């Protein structure tokens, strides 16, 4: 197992190097003077000379590439012009919002998608099955940004005054003050350091923070704010999960051991939930893992709609402001995250499915 993980990590190194090369090439393909493209049109010659020297832009291309890799490895992703902060700091600050949204969307997709898939498979060709599959087809064909806007319109305007009314923007109702859990617990936090950054990071996950400080009203508020964006981001994965669960369940239910289990007298419900579901869920691990990565793409489109200032929002702002440096850094970070996620999915697959041989 350990050797497999090591081998898998080593085999993904060339891909990581390739990612760095692609983003490096993208950065060098910016039309015009790289300094003014990154620092803005108003940069003076003195500033530009300094910039070029610092980033080694006057050196040969291969040397530049090595310098670039060095910068990434040191965690130096450059500085955002708009925010006047290092990009890494921005990510740490904004990631909790995106993470919370992604996890909520995932929970929604799994909690609704898997049961729908199971029911469809068990009641194969019934009206429930057909309805689910129609919905799944429609679900994967919807543009995320459109669904988000429509949900906001329906739940914030059409259903205004009913109990179903939901807030269309923000993470918490205006005026809600949430003390971070470390203050409530009387923890002493250092101004810098990995541990304190982690604690601050966790405290920015609103639901977790509310849970740790036992503020149930804040938690309910946070969840209400999350429902619409999570439904928008989660719908495509939900449709995919429902379809996969259904076809995988149909496969498994047709197998001999299911018939054996039934013949031994096991109740149908028990066979479906205990014998079939476990095996049917295996292919879903891949889907769920990979859709977590694509949520980041969906976040760019949904966060702006729902007024959430997460990672996707920064990227959107960077795109509209032509803040090339930030777009480039974000692409690197997200691609690396994607590769690591792939790695985890592969490894967990081996762990979950004893039939996968580690040759």
């Amino acid at each position, binding site marked *: 197992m350990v050797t497999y993980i090591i081998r898998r990590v080593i085999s993904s190194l*060339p*891909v990581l190097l*390739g*990612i760095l*090369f*692609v*983003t490096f090439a*993208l950065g060098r*393909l*910016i*039309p015009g003077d790289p300094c003014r493209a990154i620092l803005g049109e108003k940069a003076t010659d003195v500033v530009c000379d300094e910039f070029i020297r610092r980033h080694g832009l006057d050196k040969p291309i291969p040397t530049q590439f090595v310098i670039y890799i060095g910068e990434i490895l040191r965690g130096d992703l450059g500085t955002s012009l708009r925010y006047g902060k290092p990009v890494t700091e921005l990510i740490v600050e904004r990631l909790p919002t995106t993470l919370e949204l992604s996890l909520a969307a995932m929970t929604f997709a799994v909690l609704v998608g898997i049961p729908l898939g199971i029911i469809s498979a068990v009641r194969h060709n019934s009206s429930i099955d057909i309805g689910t*599959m129609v919905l799944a*087809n*429609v679900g*994967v*064909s*919807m*543009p*995320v*940004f*459109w*669904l988000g*806007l*429509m949900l*906001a*319109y329906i739940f*914030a*305007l059409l259903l205004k005054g009913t109990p179903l009314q939901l807030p269309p923007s923000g993470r918490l109702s205006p005026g809600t003050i949430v003390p971070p859990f470390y203050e409530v617990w009387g923890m002493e936090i250092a101004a810098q350091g990995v541990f304190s950054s982690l604690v601050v990071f966790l405290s920015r996950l609103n639901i977790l923070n509310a849970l740790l400080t036992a503020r149930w009203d804040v938690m309910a508020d946070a969840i209400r704010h999350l429902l619409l964006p999570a439904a928008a981001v989660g719908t495509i994965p939900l449709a995919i999960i429902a379809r996969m669960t259904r076809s995988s369940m149909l496969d498994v239910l047709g197998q001999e051991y299911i018939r054996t289990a039934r013949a031994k007298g096991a109740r149908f419900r028990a066979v479906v939930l205990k014998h079939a579901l476990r095996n049917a869920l295996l292919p879903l691990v891949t889907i769920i893992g990979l859709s977590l*990565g*694509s949520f*980041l*793409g969906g976040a*760019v*489109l949904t966060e702006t*709609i729902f007024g959430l200032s997460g990672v996707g929002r920064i*990227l*959107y702002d960077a*795109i*509209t402001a*032509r803040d*090339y440096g930030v*777009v*480039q850094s*974000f*692409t690197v970070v*997200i*691609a690396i995250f*994607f*590769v690591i996620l*792939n790695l985890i999915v592969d490894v967990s697959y081996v762990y979950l499915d004893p039939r996968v041989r580690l040759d």
Partner: protein
Amino acid sequence: MTTHDMPQVSTGKVVSLDAETLSAKSVSLWKTTWRRFFKRKSALVGLVMLSILIFCAIFAEVIAPYDPLQVLIGVEPVKMRQAPCIHLLGCPQDQPQHLMGIDGNVRDQFSRIIYGSRLSLLVGFTTVSFAVVIGTVLGAVAGYLGGTVDNVIMRLMDVLLAFPSLLLAIAIVTILGPGLINALLAIGIVSIPAYARVVRSTVLTVREMEFIEASRSLGGGPFYILFSRLLPNSLTPLVVQATLGIATAILDAAALSFLGLGAIPPTPEWGTMLGAERNQVFTAPHLVFYPGLAIMFTVLAFNLIGDGLRDALDPRLAQSSK
């Protein structure tokens, strides 16, 4: 097993394996495929939807009551972002009929949606053709030559696949500069790996077969073998992949336009229309609803057809009634 699945062997005759029989067989594969395809209701629905779209795209001038770029100020008594007026649904008869309302620049939204079908289909077909051609060449070369060439090409494809596709497209367009052509190029580049993989895998399986060896011993050169012996085997998976790829391409192009990276505003492009009016969703929901509906309709059509083709072409499903 139904009769049409059996090889068409006429009784009492010796079947000679000449060119005619072989070609007759290949026709019957497509015939069976079509028959299976038409048996699926969802695939048929998709086909009907696509026909409607193609009809709209071809006859846009006839169907659309207005020029998509015409500003109606002073032409008709309409206001900016006016709600849809449909005579059948109780809109006064003396009012000009605007099926999907008026947009933020006082243009007829219905006409713009109809003209948008041209652009959307164009986007789907051009990006996928681009990606299929390049992907096929790369995949075929990688699979046929093998070794270092294969390794280099496929690792490059792995790198492209390592990026979430929309994000890579965004990064490429940000660098190239916004515009429809650049957006198409970006989406095309992003979707190359899928086709390269499909072609490579079929070339790899077919390469070692005896009929290839026979071709080679008859003096067939590498190009001949590649294009007339190996690639036809990739056709079926490519068709399925391309149909589903069109759906993704249209969705991604709409997303890029929504972000302001695709078609430039006066162009009647659905994603652009939606992006321009996104902040009006509470005051003029029709300006957001209809373009999105049109995108969904188009993407759904290609998804249904793609799924239908995949099932029809899948030999494992040949005998089941699924």
